[in-house]
């Protein structure tokens, strides 16, 4: 038997006898002979855990990791923020890690209450009334926002700002192939969305999706987006940056109906892109269309406060083909990390992260724009990242900067005229920023 199967030979014999079989092979009598795999899987035999760790360590060593190998100036939806020891050491307690979705609330108050607290902090950050218990990531949270808006308005055209993360827009397009929603990209002009003055031809939009700050780091005018949405009776969907929310007005207060976002900056390492955390919140009028799990407070039989997943009739296991979404497993553990990180930050710490990131970004921006041949991509105000044009391709700059010890940024695609997206968080110091600018000057020379 394998490493993790407890049975001894004696156990197996006793159990086979109990169920009336002669051999383990007999367990699979129901599998037609022709379908049985002769000769077993063509995989190497099992290894000891020590050999496994050596092998994964070899693979881990074959990456350039942020901090140890590269000082990170890349953002673009994945940010290099501090994670205090208390967050992972607490969130990774095995009760949280090895529990299932809280189907039996009487023995799942730990996860349920943590999610209730998570929901509360996300609702506050977004400035809306209700947040769900997480979605997969920022990209799929946008998908769900669109699905909700289309269902709410009955109109399947959605205007999508060109400032929404390109990978997210690719994801939207992929999912739209199934739902049949019509996504219309609205281009940027000097860093912010140029919304069409009219209906843009065809059915008016049921939703307008904008990112705040957007992919280039620029601050979109949400009031204007709200007006555009109102003009068409559309919902305003805002993909916000929860770190920027430390100093920016909440999307809810600026008129958003649905706010989504990527929760990675709060307590999740870069992790090559996952598991991350889809933030999702809505005005209370949309609560019955909310995708995925929602935790609510209630009482137990003795009148004690208790938590439970609620409004379950929205969900796939009950509503099946009419469910508000197909999501089942979500990103609960990452949501717990996020709740702990936000509680570690508190009111003042959240503001600090935002301000310190903004300061580092401003310092970086000033330093690199002082370099000959480096130009800002847009003049719109930015907060925690910014785009630049360079004499070399962004990809080439990133490769060369790695030799100098930096992850220089995220190369921008043609739709943005190429160049590089540069972000600096509260982890970046003056000396790192100076060294970065010096290196950049050197590599583009």
């Amino acid at each position, binding site marked *: 038997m394998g490493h993790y199967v407890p049975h001894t030979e004696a156990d197996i014999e006793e159990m086979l006898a109990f169920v009336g079989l002669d051999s383990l092979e007999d367990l699979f009598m129901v599998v037609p002979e022709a379908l049985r795999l002769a000769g077993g899987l063509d*995989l190497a035999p099992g290894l000891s855990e020590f050999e496994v760790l050596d092998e994964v360590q070899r693979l881990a060593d074959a990456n*350039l990791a942020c901090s140890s190998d590269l000082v990170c100036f890349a953002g673009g939806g994945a940010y290099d923020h501090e994670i205090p020891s208390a967050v992972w050491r607490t969130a990774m307690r095995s009760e949280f890690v090895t529990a299932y979705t809280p189907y039996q609330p*009487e023995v799942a108050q730990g*996860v349920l209450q943590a999610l209730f607290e998570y929901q509360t902090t996300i609702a506050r950050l977004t400035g809306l009334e209700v947040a769900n218990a997480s979605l997969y990531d920022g990209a799929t949270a946008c998908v769900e926002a669109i699905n909700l808006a289309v269902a709410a308005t009955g109109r399947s055209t959605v205007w999508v700002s060109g400032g929404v993360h390109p990978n*997210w827009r690719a994801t939207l397009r992929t999912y739209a192939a199934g739902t049949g929603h019509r996504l219309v990209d609205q281009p940027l002009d000097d860093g912010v969305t140029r919304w069409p003055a009219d209906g843009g031809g065809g059915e008016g939009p049921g939703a307008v999706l904008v990112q705040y700050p957007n992919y280039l780091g620029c601050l979109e005018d949400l009031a204007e987006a709200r007006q555009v949405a109102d003009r068409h009776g559309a919902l305003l969907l805002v993909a916000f940056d929860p770190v920027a929310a430390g100093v*920016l007005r909440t999307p809810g207060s600026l008129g958003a109906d649905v706010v989504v976002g990527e929760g990675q900056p709060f307590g999740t390492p870069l992790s090559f*892109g996952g598991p991350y955390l889809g933030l999702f919140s809505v005005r209370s009028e949309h609560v019955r269309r909310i995708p995925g799990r929602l935790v609510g407070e209630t009482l137990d039989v003795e009148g004690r406060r208790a938590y439970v997943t609620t409004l379950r009739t929205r969900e796939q296991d009950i509503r099946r083909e009419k469910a508000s979404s197909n999501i089942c497993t979500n*990103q609960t553990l990452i949501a717990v990390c996020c709740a702990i990180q936000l509680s570690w930050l508190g009111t003042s710490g959240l503001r600090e992260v935002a*301000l310190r990131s903004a300061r580092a970004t401003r310092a970086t921006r000033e330093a690199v724009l002082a370099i000959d041949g480096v130009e800002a991509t847009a003049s719109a105000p930015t907060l925690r990242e910014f785009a630049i044009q360079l004499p070399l391709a962004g990809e080439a700059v990133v490769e060369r900067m790695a030799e100098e010890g930096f992850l220089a940024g995220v190369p921008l695609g043609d739709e943005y005229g190429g160049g590089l997206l540069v972000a600096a968080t509260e982890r970046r110091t003056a000396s790192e920023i100076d060294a970065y600018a010096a290196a950049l000057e050197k590599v583009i020379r």
Partner: protein
Amino acid sequence: MTQDPTSREGSAPGGRASSIPLLGRDAEPTIFELSSPGRRAWSFRDQDLPDWSADELVPPEHLAPEPVALPEVSERDLVAHFTRLSHRQYSVDLGAYPLGSCTMKYNPKLCDDAAALPGFAHVHPSAPASMTQGWIELLVSLGDALCQVTGMHAVTLQPPAGAAGELTGLLLMRAFHTANGDPRRKVVIPDSAHGTNPASVTLGGYETVTVPSDERGLVDLEALRAVLDTDVAGIMLTNPNTLGLFEEDIAEIAAMVHEVGGLLYYDGANLNAILGVTRPGDMGFDIVHMNLHKTFAVPHGGGGPGAGPVAVSARLAPFLPGPLPVRLADGSFGWSTPERSIGRMHGWHGNGLALVRAYAYLLANGGDGLRAVAEAAVLNANWMRVALRGAYDIPFDRPNMHECVVSATRLRKEHGVRAMDVAKRLLEEGFHAPTVYFPLIVDEALMIEPTETESLDTLRALADALVRIAEGASEADHDAPRATPVGRVDEARAARHLIPTFDAR
């Protein structure tokens, strides 16, 4: 002392913060109630930068008039709060978790260490292949192994969970038919299917056609034949099905579906049963998703994150989402997007650290170990079915695979005790409950999946408890559970008086 003694129940004030461990039945206040203005846990490094103020950094029309209110606690109270919450939470590491369809096996601690390696955790997802060779090699190797396990040709690791995998599969189906100039409208699922299946069908832009199960608990072949036509894009099955029974006619089903030009989709939630025994690809499936958080020891995290890779046969490979991790001719690793790719199912490359765990688990087990997993999982579930005979009705009392479904119908009729009551009683006995009321086609269903990591001793204790519950069934069971951190929770009230946040109180 002047303060009133604080009440132990309900809205506990902050002070109670530090006073409830080990005594499971005391409430834990929310973190918001522990908050005290100005208290803090955070510290940050000295950046040595100009002290630009918010006004200098943010245009006035964007600047928040006041900061967002978050909990203000010390690190001490933060850690204590969540540690105490963890003491109010059952988990696999505490005991048996026979939740059918969920494969709540023990997840080796080795995988935690693998996923915690800084060389994985601190890599930016936009970093180019030249800087992420280890990551991409891992993804390629994991993908190859998953293809081998499923008998498929190519795989995407992007889908972050099973349901996302299902939708990926359906979008692949759609792309395939569309490319053939043969759009279709319907997808067939059995009445025993998991709820995500029909929900995904809708999102895939298809209409669900349900086929009933026959008296064996298997797909009714005649009924299937009746619904199959050239408007059927495909069928979604899980095999073993959600009754834990192997669809013996799978070859015939495959032939029937293929005959009308449809594709076969394999819901891999139940893959644990057949590892190294038989493979979806060999059964004729065209598309397979896997729940790595079930079969491959990615812990469930209280609800996720998981990972739901999708493997396909050669004819569907050109449609896979991209970019795909690939081994290049020179032996190095890179990315490549299939020409007719449906696009992206995730903002980046999927739930990467979950994939690291699964890969470590695969290496540790190897081919031989995976087969042993399936054997023990199936042996355990059969043992459980036989052990429960007599105490419970067993609607399909025939050799099952990794789980068995029993029914509390008799208990309900004779004692008014429902499946839910049995579940709650089992919580009292110190075990997690089985899945209840699923699959929908079994009345008062209790779906029990012991998994391969539970020993015979544990199975005995679990069966003893279930038998004891059946034998002692009475009205009093409606009051169960009594020894848990909270008593039976009023779910109706939660929906009626919705309190989704602390602020909604």
